[in-house]
């Protein structure tokens, strides 16, 4: 009788995995089936000639190009803002902070990590209102505010991966610098951080992915249906995930719906691409390390 119970174990584990993979496969497969036909120049650039669009000479209508540029701008701005602060905080936690302070800070960052994205968006929106009423009436939800809010969203990822990467460095490596007379900072800057670059980079890639795919935050802080290429960080912008949301709920014709599928595929490809880079980096860098030794 027990044997049957244990046979069930194998049914359970393989069955669960199969179920999960099948469900995920359905999601991705559905998009590919419905959207593949629509992929092409027209999906991205509409009727505008490619070169003119890329040179920013002519605006693109009914195409994903503005949303893609918007997402790109958003990612660069927000990761650019979050990176120095996140990296420095992670270094502080791993190298300088001790005991209760470390524990307290860790708690804060865990809370930040678990924060629902819409609350972060609401935070960004509240900052906008606050600044609008107190300082300049010219401040509205815009690219800058969205990037700032996204930076807050991904900050914990950067902090955590930096901290974990530094804490994982074996003791004998840590002692190399000081044993040669390096100060603490010199040790961090010249030995520890370069050694953990691989993990830190994967943290950065994680942050990039998160910024590219988030919808809730940007919905409250400045993304709009139609705005063209973002010309300034104080203006409105478009973004891929919002486009997908908008089209899914409010497509006006079959063409728009197909574009929505196409946008979803592009977003998935972007995430897969980031994941691929992360994989390759790990493989490549660990090989390098191996060779050096």
């Amino acid at each position, binding site marked *: 009788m027990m044997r049957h119970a244990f046979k069930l174990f194998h049914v359970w584990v393989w069955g669960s995995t199969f179920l999960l993979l099948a469900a995920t496969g359905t999601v991705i497969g559905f998009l590919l089936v419905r959207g593949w036909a629509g992929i092409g120049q027209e999906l991205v650039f509409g009727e505008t000639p490619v070169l003119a669009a890329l040179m920013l000479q002519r605006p693109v209508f009914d195409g994903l190009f503005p949303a893609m540029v918007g997402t790109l701008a958003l990612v660069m701005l927000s990761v650019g803002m979050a990176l120095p602060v996140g990296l420095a905080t992670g270094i502080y936690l791993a190298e300088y902070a001790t005991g209760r302070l470390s524990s307290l800070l860790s708690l804060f960052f865990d809370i930040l990590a678990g924060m629902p994205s819409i609350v972060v968006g609401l935070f960004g929106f509240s900052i906008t209102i606050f600044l609008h009423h107190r300082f300049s009436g010219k401040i509205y939800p815009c690219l800058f505010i969205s990037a700032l809010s996204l930076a807050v969203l991904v900050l914990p990822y950067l902090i955590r991966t930096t901290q974990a990467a530094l804490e994982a460095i074996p003791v004998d490596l840590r002692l190399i610098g000081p044993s040669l007379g390096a100060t603490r900072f010199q040790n961090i800057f010249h030995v520890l951080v370069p050694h953990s670059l691989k993990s830190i980079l994967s943290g950065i890639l994680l942050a990039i992915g998160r910024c590219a795919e988030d919808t809730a935050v940007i919905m409250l802080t400045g993304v709009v249906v139609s705005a063209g290429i973002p010309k300034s960080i104080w203006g409105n912008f478009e973004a891929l995930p919002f486009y997908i949301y908008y089209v899914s709920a409010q497509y006006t014709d079959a063409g728009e719906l197909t574009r*929505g599928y196409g946008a979803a595929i592009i977003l998935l490809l972007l995430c*897969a691409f980031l994941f691929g880079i992360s994989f390759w980096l790990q493989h490549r860098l660990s090989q390098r390390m191996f060779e050096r030794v």
Partner: protein
Amino acid sequence: MTRSEFLAKHGFMAAAIISAAVTLAIFIFMALLGYPILTSGRLFAALLGAWQPTLQSYGILPMITGTFILAILAVAAAFPVCLGCAALVSDAAPGLVGRFLHAVVRMMTGIPTVVYGFVGIFVLVPLMREVFGRGSGFSLLTAALMLALLVSPTMILLFCDSFRRVTHSYRQAAAALGATTAQQFLYVVLPQARNGILAGVLLGLGRALGDTMIALMLAGNAVAFPDHLFDSARTLTAHIALIIAADFDSPEFRTLFLCGLTLYVLTTLLVLGVRLTMRLPGRRP
């Protein structure tokens, strides 16, 4: 300490303080902007009442209920599947297959929620409507199923991690006594990883509570208290997304910050809960 050392240390500390300040700032802003509700004595009415603007009732209890039911349902549905999958990836599958599956699961964590919601509208909603014959297809159950799919990869990775930490020698001991993979897993790994599993569940719960897009696109957004699983319902997160457009000075708008505060408090409680699992008897997760 040299000058640059001093600057470096305080530079890093400043960054850490900024980061911590941001976390607090979120709470402060929510409280600041939701101030009218918090102090006017209408707090209980807001928290415990129903949402009926025509009757001047701006209670968010239906939304709180919706959030809880959805999150619990999603994690409950995901749990057995995630546990099984994690068992396979870390123990039951032969080496290469296990590593491959682990990579696949890692890749799945990158699928954006808006994509799940998008597919849900066109695949799951009609399916639920036809299969169950009740409701419009936009319901708590529909959203819960998709949400379960969303949180699964994260939960699986966390479970895998905690399985991996079970001391290898325990496994070896069991194997030496003649235990099969199944027996090893059920009698040795699982009990040892209990705390880690709990932590994983809590984190999955947190993710499910905080999701906006799936709830917004698939749960129907009705303001009534959900009576049963096939009812359309609204979560706190979807409510924020829907009401953000309301007039600044209206009481409806203020309830948004109350929603934000509630979510903040819930998140904090979950994080503290996870920390507590580290203190429970047994292996550290």
